């Protein structure tokens, strides 16, 4: 199936381009080296949200950061979405429209269009959400000013209902005051500054941003629309075309993997509106901190999603371990374990043992023997560990199992000593 491209190639409206300054001097002026503000790609994936998609497109058009492109994708809607989309794009050259003839699910559609993105940063916009005009400026400014560059930034939001009534002033996910997080931005004097972010806003941002280390477990981000990724990271974790992608959400794949690979940052400022309209797949009501706002079917779906994530990570062990230097951290993250109590049931379940056995040879290539054996020993114990080690039965199995048993008992001894 080939996506049909409508609309013309990307177009730059040079007059309205956001300017970057460094130490007060315009970076885009020829004398300063012709550095331009980055192009940001919006990917708007719509499925049967004719009622809301128009407002989403308009909110992208109204960004005060003008250097954008927007790929609008219709994921085989059966309502009047297509005509709504066309009427809202009109002849804005920054927008292009792709129509799929078959619904690929959100993740499938995301994966398919990653190669069509020209921008250096990308936002996947849900068709029922809204962006505030400073969304793009703020995210780009934070990406350029954080002490450590991260895979993506996640901002706060207001929750609204079907007709736009405000329900909450914030999401319950974003908590910048957590002690492990690193707060703040680099000093304004030494970072590239966007002309659309004034000093006051920069100072406010400085107090409301936090970087999360890649080893932090748990969910700390808002969903979908409110995240801006580096396009390079998204392209790196793009799923191989041979891999069958079930119909599922993009967030549960992109966010945990991007974070585990290359960290993330939070912006505790409201930059978008998240709509709760009664037909959301997960969410049944606005978020109140101590009450879940999704139903019990969530668990099974979540487990299936993260099982697939784990398979993708294991199948790319060699590459991902080289890049991130810490394959076991990626594996921990994909296990979606919040505390040590959950570790045992996860690693003793048959599908997980089978999965590790299937990719044992890749893991062995990726890791040094001591990392490999001790990682397996800590998670799977003696018996299931041996099963995984020996599943790659081609070469010297006795030697391998002996060394595994040795590592296992050394681990136990050191554990007892502790």
């Amino acid at each position, binding site marked *: 199936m080939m996506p049909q491209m409508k609309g013309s190639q990307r177009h730059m409206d040079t007059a309205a381009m956001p300017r970057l300054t460094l130490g007060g001097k315009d970076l885009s002026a020829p004398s300063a080296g012709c550095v331009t503000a980055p192009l940001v790609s919006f990917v708007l994936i719509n499925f049967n949200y004719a009622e809301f998609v128009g407002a989403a497109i308009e909110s992208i058009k109204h960004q005060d950061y003008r250097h954008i492109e927007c790929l609008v994708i219709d994921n085989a809607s059966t309502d009047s979405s297509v005509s709504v989309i066309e009427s809202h794009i009109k002849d804005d050259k920054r927008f292009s429209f792709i129509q799929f003839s078959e619904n690929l699910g959100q993740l499938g559609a995301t994966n398919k269009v990653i190669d069509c993105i020209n921008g250096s940063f990308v936002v996947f916009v849900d068709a029922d959400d809204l962006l505030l005009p400073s969304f793009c400026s703020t995210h780009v400014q934070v990406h350029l000013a954080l002490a450590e560059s991260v895979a993506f930034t996640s901002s706060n939001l207001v929750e609204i*209902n079907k007709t736009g*009534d*405000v*329900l909450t*002033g914030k999401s319950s996910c974003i908590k910048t005051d957590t002690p492990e997080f690193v707060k703040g931005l680099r000093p304004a004097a030494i970072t590239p500054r966007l002309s659309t972010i004034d000093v006051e806003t920069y100072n*406010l941002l400085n107090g409301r941003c936090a970087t999360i280390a890649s080893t932090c477990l748990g969910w700390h981000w808002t969903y979908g629309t409110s995240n801006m990724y580096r396009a390079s990271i998204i392209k790196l974790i793009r799923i191989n075309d041979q891999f069958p992608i079930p119909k599922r959400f993009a967030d549960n794949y992109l966010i945990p993997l991007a974070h585990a690979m290359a960290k993330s940052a939070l912006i505790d400022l409201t930059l978008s509106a998240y709509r709760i309209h009664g037909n959301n797949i997960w969410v049944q009501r606005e978020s*109140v901190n101590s*009450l879940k706002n999704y139903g019990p079917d969530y668990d099974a779906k979540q487990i299936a999603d993260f099982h697939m994530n784990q398979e993708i990570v294991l199948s790319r062990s060699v590459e991902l371990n080289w890049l991130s230097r810490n394959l076991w951290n990626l594996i921990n993250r994909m296990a979606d374990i919040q505390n040590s109590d959950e570790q045992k049931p996860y690693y003793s379940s048959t599908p997980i043992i089978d999965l590790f056995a299937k990719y044992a040879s890749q893991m062995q290539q990726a890791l040094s023997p001591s990392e490999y054996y001790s990682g397996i020993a800590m998670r799977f114990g003696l018996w299931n560990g041996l099963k995984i080690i020996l599943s790659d039965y081609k070469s010297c199995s006795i030697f391998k199992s002996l060394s595994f048993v040795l590592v296992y008992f050394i681990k136990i001894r050191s554990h007892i000593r502790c």
Partner: protein
Amino acid sequence: MSFQSIDNISIIPINSQSEPEAATADIPILRLGGKDLSELSAGGVKVPLVSFVLVNFNYADFIGETIESIKRQDYTHFECLIVDNGSTDHSVSVVQSHIGEDKRFSLVQLNENLGQLGAIVWAIDHIKGSFVVFVDSDDLLFPSFCSTHIQAHLALPESVAFTSSNVIEINKVGDVLTGKYERIKTETPNFIKGLRPSSIVPRLSTIDDDTFELMSQNSAVIPKSEWGWCWSPGTSNMFRVSIVKLLNISKEFAIPNRSADSYFMNMAHVLAQSAVIDMSQSAYRVHGQNYFAHRESINSLRKYGADYARQEKLNNLQTMEIILARSIEFNWLAGNLWNTIEYMTKIYNRNEMSEYYRSAPVINLFVKYAERLSQSMPNHEFYAGVSIRFGLSKGLKIISASDDKHKSLNCLNYISIYFKKTCLSIFKKRPPQKQKK
């Protein structure tokens, strides 16, 4: 204004009601960082519609003033549904004359009295707002009531099920008796005090900077772990409609004959937390015929009678049935079902509590819903929870009712857990031995 009597409460909707029309000119504005949020979002983000539900039973003397006090709200974007709960006085004509031509108001007349909670249960299915206030028809709201509550909901450090503001107590003719309600407090150590910074929250145009600062100093989120009543009564609370709809009592249950606040506020708090605003935003009238209060609140004196307490015990049982019947859902949503159960017994001392779990109606209730309880949580939590509360023999009765197939196995399991627990508690009770230096 529309007017309609209905015969069968559960069937006839009030569809002759016109859409609530607020004078668009004075609708308050929400600002984010000083900019109009509605303009920023090209009209996509708006101030929420607030629903007032005013249930009236024979308060013709007071309801006119109550309606006027709602009309005078500086937050004009509201609808008000007045439910006449089978009054036998001239309430209806008073209501009609006070509503006048205001399109935001509508009136429904029930031909029999459903009780306050019954009328509210019915009304909840007919409101359109995102936030709701259940107004008692003998109380008065101050003009900033609605603005203050909405601002708190949008600015609290954690989103909560409802906000409760302070009151002043007045008598029949309006004389002020007290300046506050005795239960409201914000200085308790585990409360989360304050609002989020003004620069990052949606700000209402009807709340100026000074007022926001004052609110910030006098507001607190009450954590779930806080037990006991720490709010003002009825009128002074604004709920999230989504939570009220979640907790609304479906037709399969008997509606407890109790006040709406004692059902909704306790349930909403134990599942989704609440917050207090220690600023007086309404007047609570003590006029001699109140259902609950006999006199104004004085911190160290009970103001309700013994018959009220007896009735409450019965009502608590009906509420408990609702919790047990929905145990799977509630444990999924909020976790820690045993805490919810314990909280809704509304018993705060250990001896009364053990008496409670030994009474036959309570045991029967748990036996009836044993299966659902056991499905709602892992086995070890279920067994441990039952063993602490019901002891060995009563506990076994509940356990054996929970699963017909594995009765004997479950009972054995239970017994072993019970003895483990008792051994542990004996062990713990032993005073710690002093270490020799």
